[in-house]
C-alpha cells in the first residue's frame, strides 16, 4: 500500500520555497520547449495550409522557389494548350505570375525585412477562392495599386489601406487587405501582373505559372507532360508540396530550440535531483520510522518518486502558463527559399501542452529516481540514527 498522496503534497508545501524554485526551473525548461514548438507549429500551419490539391506550380527545372525561377511568356501559351486543365468560364485556369522581393520597414524594426511581391492576373485571384478581402477592394489593372496580406498590414509601416508604399519605380497605393486564412499569402503583397512586369522590367520573363488540373489523374498527367517536354525545360510541382517544403526553413530554429531545451532539461533534472536528495537527507529518520511501521522499501521509493513527479507536474504547469500568452501572437521568420519573411501566429495545441507536461514528468522521474532509490535502500537502523 503506498503512502497517501496528502503525505507527498504536504511535504512539498512544507518546503515551499525550495519546491517552487525547482518547479520554476522545470517550468522555464518546459516554456522554452513549448515556445519553440508553438513557433514551429504556427509556421508549419501557415505553410502547410497553403495551396490547392489540384494546383500545379510550374517553374524552371531545378528551381527551389518562384523567386529564382524563370519562365518565358511563350511557354505560357504551350502550357495553356496542354490537356487536362480545368476551364473556368471558357478560360483555362492558368495564372502566369511574377514573384519578386522588396525590403519594407516594420513597425518594430526600421531596418525592415524582405517581403514577397506577387504580380498576378485576375485569373490568379479567381483560382484562390478561399482568399477574401477583409478590407478595401482589389487592385485595378493598369493602376499602381496593391493589396497586402493581413500579416503585412499589421506588421509593416505604411501598409494600411489608404497608405502608399514605395518600391520599384515609385509609390503604390494600398487599396485592400487580403485574408488568406493564416496561410503564406498573408505575408505577400499582390499587384497586377502587367503593372509589376513593367515596373520591374520583366515583360518577357515570369517566375511561375499556376495551373489547376481537372482532376488528380490529369494533375499527374500534366506533371509528366511538362517533365517530358524538353523544349520548355520546366517542371510542375504540386502547390501543396511546394509550400510544405518551405517548412524546412524552420528546421534550424527547431533544432536550436530543442537543443537548448534538452540542455536546460539536464540542468533541471539535476535541480530536481538535488531537491530530492535534500528531502531524503532531511527526512532520513522519517523514512526509518515508516520502515519500522511496516512500509516496504518499494513504498518509500514510490513515495519519493511521486513527490518528484508532483514537483515536476507543478513545473510543467508553470511552463504552460508562462508560454500561454504567446498563443496567437503574430510573428515572422526568414524563409531561406523565398528570401523573404513568412508571417505566422504562435500556435499552442493541446498535444503540445501534453508533450510539455510529459517532458516535465520525465525530468521529475529522472531527477527523483536516484534519491528515491537511495531512500528505499538505506538500512532502517542507519536511517533512524540520522539526525
Amino acid at each position, binding site marked *: 500500500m503506498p503512502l497517501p498522496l496528502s*503525505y507527498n503534497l504536504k511535504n512539498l508545501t512544507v518546503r515551499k520555497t525550495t519546491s517552487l524554485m525547482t518547479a520554476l526551473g522545470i517550468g522555464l525548461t518546459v516554456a522554452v520547449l513549448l515556445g519553440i514548438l508553438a513557433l514551429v507549429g504556427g509556421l508549419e500551419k501557415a505553410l502547410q495550409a497553403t495551396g490547392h490539391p489540384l494546383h500545379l506550380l510550374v517553374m524552371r527545372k531545378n528551381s527551389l522557389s518562384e523567386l529564382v525561377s524563370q519562365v518565358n511568356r511563350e511557354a505560357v501559351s504551350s502550357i495553356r494548350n496542354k490537356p487536362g486543365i480545368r476551364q473556368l468560364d471558357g478560360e483555362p485556369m492558368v495564372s502566369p505570375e511574377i514573384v519578386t522581393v522588396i525590403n519594407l520597414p516594420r513597425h518594430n524594426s526600421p531596418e525592415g525585412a524582405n517581403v514577397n511581391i506577387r504580380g498576378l492576373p485576375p485569373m490568379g485571384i479567381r483560382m484562390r477562392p478561399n482568399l477574401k478581402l477583409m478590407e478595401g477592394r482589389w487592385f485595378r489593372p493598369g493602376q499602381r495599386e496593391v493589396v497586402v496580406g493581413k500579416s503585412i498590414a499589421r506588421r509593416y509601416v505604411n501598409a494600411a489601406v489608404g497608405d502608399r508604399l514605395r518600391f520599384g519605380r515609385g509609390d503604390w497605393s494600398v487599396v485592400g487587405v487580403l485574408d488568406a486564412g493564416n496561410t503564406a499569402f498573408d505575408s505577400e503583397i499582390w499587384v497586377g501582373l502587367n503593372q509589376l512586369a513593367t515596373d520591374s522590367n520583366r515583360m518577357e520573363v515570369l517566375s511561375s505559372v499556376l495551373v489547376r488540373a481537372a482532376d488528380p489523374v490529369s494533375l499527374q498527367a500534366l506533371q509528366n507532360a511538362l517533365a517530358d517536354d524538353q523544349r520548355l525545360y520546366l517542371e510542375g510541382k504540386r502547390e501543396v508540396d511546394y509550400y510544405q517544403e518551405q517548412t524546412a526553413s524552420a528546421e534550424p530554429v527547431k533544432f536550436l530550440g530543442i537543443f537548448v531545451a534538452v540542455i536546460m532539461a539536464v540542468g533541471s533534472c539535476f535541480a530536481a535531483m538535488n531537491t530530492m536528495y535534500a528531502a531524503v537527507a532531511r527526512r532520513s*529518520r522519517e523514512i526509518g*520510522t*515508516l520502515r519500522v*511501521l*511496516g512500509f*516496504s522499501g518499494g513504498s518509500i521509493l514510490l513515495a519519493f518518486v511521486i513527490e518528484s513527479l508532483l514537483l515536476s507536474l507543478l513545473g510543467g504547469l508553470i511552463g504552460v502558463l508562462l508560454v500561454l500568452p504567446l498563443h496567437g501572437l503574430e510573428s515572422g521568420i526568414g524563409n531561406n527559399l523565398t528570401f523573404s519573411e513568412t508571417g505566422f501566429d504562435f500556435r499552442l495545441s493541446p498535444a503540445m501542452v501534453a508533450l510539455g507536461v510529459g517532458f516535465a514528468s520525465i525530468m521529475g522521474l529522472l531527477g527523483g529516481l536516484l534519491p528515491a532509490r537511495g531512500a528505499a535502500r538505506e538500512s532502517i*537502523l542507519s536511517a533512524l540514527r540520522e539526525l
Partner: protein
Amino acid sequence: MVNDFVVEATELHKEFQRDAFQVIALQDVHLTIQRGEFVAFMGPSGSGKSTLLYLIAAIDRPTRGQVKVLGQDILRLKERAIADWRNENIGFIFQTFNLIPVLTARENVELPLLLTHLSRQERAEHAATALGLVGLSDRMDHYPRQLSGGQEQRVAIARAIVSDPSIILADEPTGDLDAQSAQEILTILSRLNRDHGKTILMVTHDPHAARHASKIRYLEKGELLPEGAPQPE
C-alpha cells in the same frame, strides 16, 4: 507443557565494524519473555540494550544466533515479509517520538493501518479509539509541532497500539520528557500491560521508569546478566 514465550533468543550475538575496530554489541544472549510480561532493560550506554530491542523487532540482524518472536523465526523471513510481520505484531515507541511532522495526530496514528485491509472509515475509527486510550481525543487534528513532548509521545504510543500488536517495544520512551510527562507515559504503558495484556519490552536508563516493569534485566558490555542479578555498579 506448551510454553507461552513471545520472545525466545538463543546465543544472540551482534558485532559490527566501527572504523578499524570490531565492536561487540551483544554477546551470546539467551532470553525468554513470557506473554504479558513488562520487562525493563537497563544498563549503561553501549551495553547493548537498544541493539537487543532492534534485533527482536527485526530492524537489525544478528551476527549469529537465533531469535523467535511469537513462534516465528524472524531471521528466515525476507524483507517484504518482515515489514508485514512487524506491522502486524510489533508496536515501536522511540525516544524522540518520530512522528511525521506534516501529518496530524490522527494521520500519524492511521499510518500503520494503511497497510491493512481496513476501510477509510474503519481506519479513522481505530485511530480515534487509540488516541482516546492515550487521552488525546481533543488533539486529533493537531500537528506534532502543536503538541507538547508528552503529547507527542502519547500520539506515538497510540500509533504503536493502533494495529493491536502483541508486543510493544519502547526505546527510552521517557528519555526526552519532563518528570510529569514521563509519569503519564509510564502510567499508559502500565495500563496497556495490565488492562490490555500487551507484552512490553522497555529500554531505559531511568530506575524510576524501570520500577513500572514487572521485571528488570540488566545488560553490561553486551552481556545479559542473569535474572535477579543486582544492578551493576
